[in-house]
């Protein structure tokens, strides 16, 4: 898909992978909207991105609010063609720590943001993609939209303390193929990116011990953490290549996480 003049929504767009993806899409000529839960941060990020990028406060876990926001975006900008789901959190925690079970709410919160938040935005974006194609009278086989989800290599090799995060990302990875199958007839492609260790606020702001564990994992090559621009580069490659669909692509320098450091 050529993104020029297309509406692209990036969740978690105020920082890290989302911010870099928004910058790359905007530079490629897309009309970009970034969503983030922090109103001030999202406004500042939109300003610094330039290119007419718009910022909206949004909590991806809120069904109605997200629905309303997508409807509003449709009215003001037209149908969404590209959705990049980057909103996500990492809250490490052992299942049992000092004899006490993890609070179920802690697990649920991670799943709510990373997994349900992703599907929440997908369900709001997909009808716009379908309707826009049929309103334009475009034939079957025409591309209507591209959706890129952020999984993680924790979906495949989660470390100790990552039960919630790995479960949520495993869910994100797992729904890529069934979604591609369901939405293929409507010309919508679904892809996932499973980043390894990247330097983003999410990883840099982890508690010191967790941060140490995460950044101690050095990929075979390059022997450094990934940069958000490299994630964004893959986002653009995926959007541009029509044959890529239903696949979760590892972007990790060959890293396989050990159980612990």
């Amino acid at each position, binding site marked *: 898909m050529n993104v020029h003049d297309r509406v692209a929504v990036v969740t978690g767009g105020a920082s890290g992978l989302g911010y870099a993806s928004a910058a790359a899409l905007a530079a490629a000529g897309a009309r970009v909207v970034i969503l983030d839960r922090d109103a001030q941060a999202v406004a500042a990020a939109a300003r610094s991105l330039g290119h007419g990028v718009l910022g909206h406060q949004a909590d991806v876990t809120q069904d109605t609010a997200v629905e309303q926001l997508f409807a509003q975006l449709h009215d003001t900008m037209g149908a969404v063609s590209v959705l990049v789901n980057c909103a996500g959190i990492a809250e490490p925690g052992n299942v049992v720590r000092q004899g006490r079970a993890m609070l179920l709410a802690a697990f649920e919160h991670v799943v709510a943001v990373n997994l349900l938040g992703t599907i929440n935005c997908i369900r709001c974006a997909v009808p716009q993609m379908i309707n826009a194609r049929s309103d334009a009278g475009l034939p079957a*086989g025409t*591309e209507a939209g591209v959706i890129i989800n952020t999984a993680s290599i924790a979906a495949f090799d989660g470390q100790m303390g990552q039960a919630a995060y790995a479960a949520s990302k495993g869910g994100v990875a797992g729904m890529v*193929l069934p979604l*591609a*199958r369901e*939405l*293929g*007839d409507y*010309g*919508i*492609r*679904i892809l996932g990116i499973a*980043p*390894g260790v990247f330097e983003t606020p999410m990883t840099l702001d982890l508690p010191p011990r967790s941060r140490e564990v995460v950044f101690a994992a050095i*990929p*075979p*090559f*390059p*022997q*450094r953490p*990934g*940069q958000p621009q*490299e*994630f964004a*580069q*893959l986002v653009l*490659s995926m959007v*541009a*290549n*029509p*044959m*890529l*669909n*239903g*696949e979760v*692509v*590892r*972007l*990790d*320098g*060959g*890293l*396989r996480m050990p159980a612990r450091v």
Partner: protein
Amino acid sequence: MKLQGSVAVVTGAASGLGRACVDMLLAEGCSVAAIDLAPAEVEAQSGAPRLLPLAGDVSDAGDMERAFAAIARELGTPGILINCAGVLGPARVFRIDKVTGRAVPRPMEPFRRVLDINLVGTFNTIRLFAQGLAQAGPVRDGEDRGVIINTASVAAYEALSAQTAYGASKAGVASMTLPLARELAYYGIRVMALAPGTFETGMYEVVPDHTRRTLIDDVPFPCRPGRPAEFAHMAKALIENQMMNGSVVRIDGAVRMREPQARSTESAR
């Protein structure tokens, strides 16, 4: 890794995916060594200045040693290797003897040939390519010095009946991606594999019509065979993105292969 000014080697370069990669690399400003059994055609079709067509069998150690020596001499040390040389087979396990009605084993030769070309042939160029780059010693500046892209297949995961040899050979290609990436990281060489679904290549043209229709009907989107240029587009993305290493990427329109017969049974229900 930058494409402009790099030396690239492509096997299976005369047609299909390999040919599309040669075109992409030339367009991006690479010098390209195009290896195939019949490379003269590449020369006739492309006629670009930085193209070095080479004849050789990828499964033959001597052939590839000579080819890589010629590449080093004519173009310099290659930094990009795209292995596309491959054959489909077929290699069935047994046949029913028409006279006796008894099952008899098929010969070993077709099976071995598929493994030789697809798997051993892939490793053959990798060892010589890596040897060239390893002369410079361990990587020091953190920049990649080389990229290897191997052609696996969705058949590495869901090969169809009569694709035993093909599926096994491609699974081998897929499985060696990670250990090669781990080993060659020391020299700054990244190793990736692409696993294409059904693409418009010579290999696809030999598939019987009814099988071909089923294969394509099964592709969620886009519901058509892939174009070799789309394979080359992804190869370029892998070369340019330094964080891509040690993994296999499916490029298949989300297809998961299933037996054509299984589908007709289903619709008959």
